């Protein structure tokens, strides 16, 4: 009797997995889920939950179906989610939760039948037999069940087991037989084994041993073909109990041993699983480590990449800086080159100037020397007339050499900006007179007629010494380029209240346009000796131009060859009250 209850107990434990294994092999469900996954491919949570559902990863299914529920209001998706959740809860043996989820599924749902069967199973598992009975009977009333024998057998089996628990053995037998019939047609070994077990237990509990034993034997025979070790063990144990009741102890022992063997192997398998689990954990830990290592590597790479990045930026900056500096350098060197060229040019002019100046000076001094020698010679012969002439000549040479030197000095001072410059009111007539005074012998020598027609009322506001230099040079030139018995005239013309025009006119050899242009060019020294006697360095006129400019005046030249020259100067007048 005791053994009978033990068997029943074992049977009850095993009943549920039997249900669910069969369910997951439902091909129809698979194909529908595949279609739905395509239809709702944008609902990531649905896709994930159904994929986890098919992989039987229940926890993940629960999570993603939950997410799906909170994110959608499509009836079908909600039904699917509840379905997934219900199934998962049953697998996790949380039948109360499974019941709640399954009750929420609407009757339009594709797997409504499945859901209802599952619901009834939950009630059965919760030992709410009356509710289970009601639900199983309702399932039988659903129209589509006739087309799905698999489900029908399940419903019959459920009803049978429920009645069995309610100890209505007749009804139980009726349903279990029906279930067995369907299962025998379907030839699912595990299902069949369950059914045989159920039948055997049913009869065994009613002490209909003769009817029970064949089923036990069938179950045992079938268990040989089944891979499920716990079922094998159970079948063997059942046989052991049967043989024990028949007092066939030898066989009972053999069955018992076999059962123990299967149990051991089950344990072994459990151990293997445990080891596998441990290994898995170890692998996970290993992976975790690897991940950490990878993370560190990543960080390292990141920092390296940052380093590269900054280095690149630095290099770029350096390059731009370099290019900029280089361009600056090129620019500078261009400027320097230009300046150098200009300087070279100026230097060349200066060199030429100096060579001409020194040549002039040398010839002057040489002439003086020669003249002096002649002078002493003449002195010995006491030829006084010639002596006088020689002295005049000497003084002329000395004068020209002096004025050359003077010009040079002033030019140098002007260049080095050392020249003292002080503007004051100057009486132009007197100045012209003073200049003329020094040139009287020269004028006399060439029998030139000099006229100072400058108005006595003209006062100009200039630097006295620089104006003297200008007038001296211009008079010197006028004398130099005048022929014998020529005429030199200084006269003024009123232009306006601010400027006074001074004109120096001679009747000399004059000059052509080109020479005028050359003379008036800025910073050009007329370093040409076209006529060794007459044309000088141009230094004098250069000096004049600069001095006039400094005094706020202007210079213009009017001339034609053999028509004489007119030098047109203008100077600022002294303000009347000044």
């Amino acid at each position: 009797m005791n053994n009978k209850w033990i068997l029943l107990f074992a049977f009850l434990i095993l009943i549920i997995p039997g249900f669910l294994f069969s369910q997951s092999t439902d091909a129809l469900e698979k194909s529908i889920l595949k279609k739905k996954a395509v239809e709702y491919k944008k609902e990531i949570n649905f896709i994930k939950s159904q994929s986890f559902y098919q992989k039987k990863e229940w926890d993940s299914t629960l999570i993603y179906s939950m997410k799906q529920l909170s994110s959608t209001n499509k009836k079908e998706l909600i039904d699917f989610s509840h379905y997934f959740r219900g199934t998962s809860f049953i697998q996790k043996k949380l039948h109360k939760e499974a019941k709640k989820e399954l009750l929420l599924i609407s009757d339009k749902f594709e797997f409504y039948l499945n859901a209802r069967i599952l619901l009834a199973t939950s009630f059965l598992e919760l030992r709410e037999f009356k509710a289970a009975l009601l639900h199983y009977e309702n399932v039988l009333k659903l129209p589509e069940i006739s087309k799905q024998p698999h489900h029908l057998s399940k419903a019959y089996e459920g009803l049978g087991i429920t009645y069995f628990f309610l100890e209505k053995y007749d009804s139980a037998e009726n349903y279990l037989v029906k279930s067995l019939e369907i299962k025998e047609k379907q030839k699912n070994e595990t299902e069949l084994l369950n059914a045989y077990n159920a039948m055997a237990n049913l009869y065994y509990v009613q002490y209909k041993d003769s009817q029970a034993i064949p089923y036990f034997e069938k179950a045992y025979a079938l268990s040989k073909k089944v891979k499920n070790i716990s079922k094998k063990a159970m079948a063997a144990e059942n046989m052991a109990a049967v043989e024990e009741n028949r007092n066939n102890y030898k066989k009972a022992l053999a069955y018992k041993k076999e059962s123990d063997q299967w149990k051991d192997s089950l344990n072994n398998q459990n151990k293997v699983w445990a080891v596998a689990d441990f290994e898995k954990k170890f692998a996970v830990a290993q992976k975790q480590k690897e991940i950490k290592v990878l993370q560190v590597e990543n960080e390292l790479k990141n920092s390296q990449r940052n380093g590269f990045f900054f280095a690149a930026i630095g290099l770029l900056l350096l390059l731009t800086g370099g290019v900029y500096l280089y361009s600056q350098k090129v620019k500078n060197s261009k400027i320097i080159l230009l300046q150098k060229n200009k300087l070279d040019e100026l230097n060349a002019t200066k060199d030429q100037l100096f060579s001409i100046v020194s040549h002039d000076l040398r010839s002057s001094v040489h002439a003086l020397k020669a003249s002096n020698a002649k002078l002493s010679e003449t002195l010995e012969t006491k030829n006084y007339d010639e002596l006088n002439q020689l002295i005049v000549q000497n003084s002329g040479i000395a004068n020209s050499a002096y004025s050359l030197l003077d010009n040079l000095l002033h030019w140098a001072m002007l260049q080095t900006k050392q020249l003292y410059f002080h503007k004051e009111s100057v009486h132009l007539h007197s100045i012209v007179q003073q200049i003329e005074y020094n040139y009287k012998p020269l004028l006399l020598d060439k029998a030139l007629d000099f006229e100072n027609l400058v108005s006595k009322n003209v006062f100009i506001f200039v630097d006295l010494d620089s104006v003297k230099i200008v007038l001296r040079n211009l008079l010197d030139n006028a004398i130099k380029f005048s022929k014998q018995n020529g005429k030199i005239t200084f006269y003024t013309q009123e232009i306006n209240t601010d400027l006074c025009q001074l004109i120096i006119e001679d009747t000399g050899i004059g000059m052509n346009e080109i020479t005028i242009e050359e003379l008036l060019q800025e910073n050009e020294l007329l370093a040409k000796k076209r006529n060794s006697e007459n044309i000088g360095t141009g230094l004098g006129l250069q000096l004049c131009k600069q001095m006039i400019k400094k005094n706020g005046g202007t210079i213009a030249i009017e001339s034609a060859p053999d028509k004489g020259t007119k030098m047109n100067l203008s100077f600022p007048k002294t303000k009347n009250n000044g």
Partner: protein
Amino acid sequence: MDNINVLIIEDTAEQSDALIKVLRQNNYAVAGVAANFTDALKLFYENTIDIIIIDVFLDGKPDGITFAESINIIPNASKPFVFLTSSQDRQIFERAKLTKPFSFLMKPFNELEILYALEMAVEKFYAQTNVFLSEEQDTVISSDFLFIKKKKSLKKVAIQEILYIEVEERYCNIITEKEKFVILISLTKINDLLDKNKFVRTHRNTIVNIDKIEEIIPADNLILLKGNHKINLSDTYKDFIKKMNILS
């Protein structure tokens, strides 16, 4: 009319000799030649000096400027002066410029330049520029003297020697106790420049030195000056008599 007394401060004998020659030729009197700073001061205080010609460099030192600076400090002692220099050194000029009034003559110079420089120095000193060389005026008037350009040179007449001045258009006849001469100056100008407490107008074209009045005869409209000069007194200008302190 007296010659102008010139003091020469010059350390080179050759230069001073040339200067003396030119000055004498042009009727200037050379009051003395000093070769150094101390001599110069001594001569300056011992003699009556009208113009000083100063060489900037004495023995290579710019003592000439120092001299000008020292006589400028003493009130009323300063006289017109001309700097002589061969240097165009900026610094020297900058320093010389501070001794206002300032005129200078660059060596080498000719006769005309010396005379011009002297005239300029007088004009600048008495702040009456553009006088001697214009055609409208030839006299600079200081508080003590008239400096008159005569031909190429300057002459001076002590103001206290003037008896009276007669104006004839642009000219003025100056009558002193000893002589009588004509200067070129307008009446208004001379009236402005003369001391109003000493010179009064007695007639439309007559200015009289009050100090020289011997007697005023209002009945005959006559003023008697020293040396028996008789001057007409016009009614319009009689008022000046009231201002005079008449001895009773």
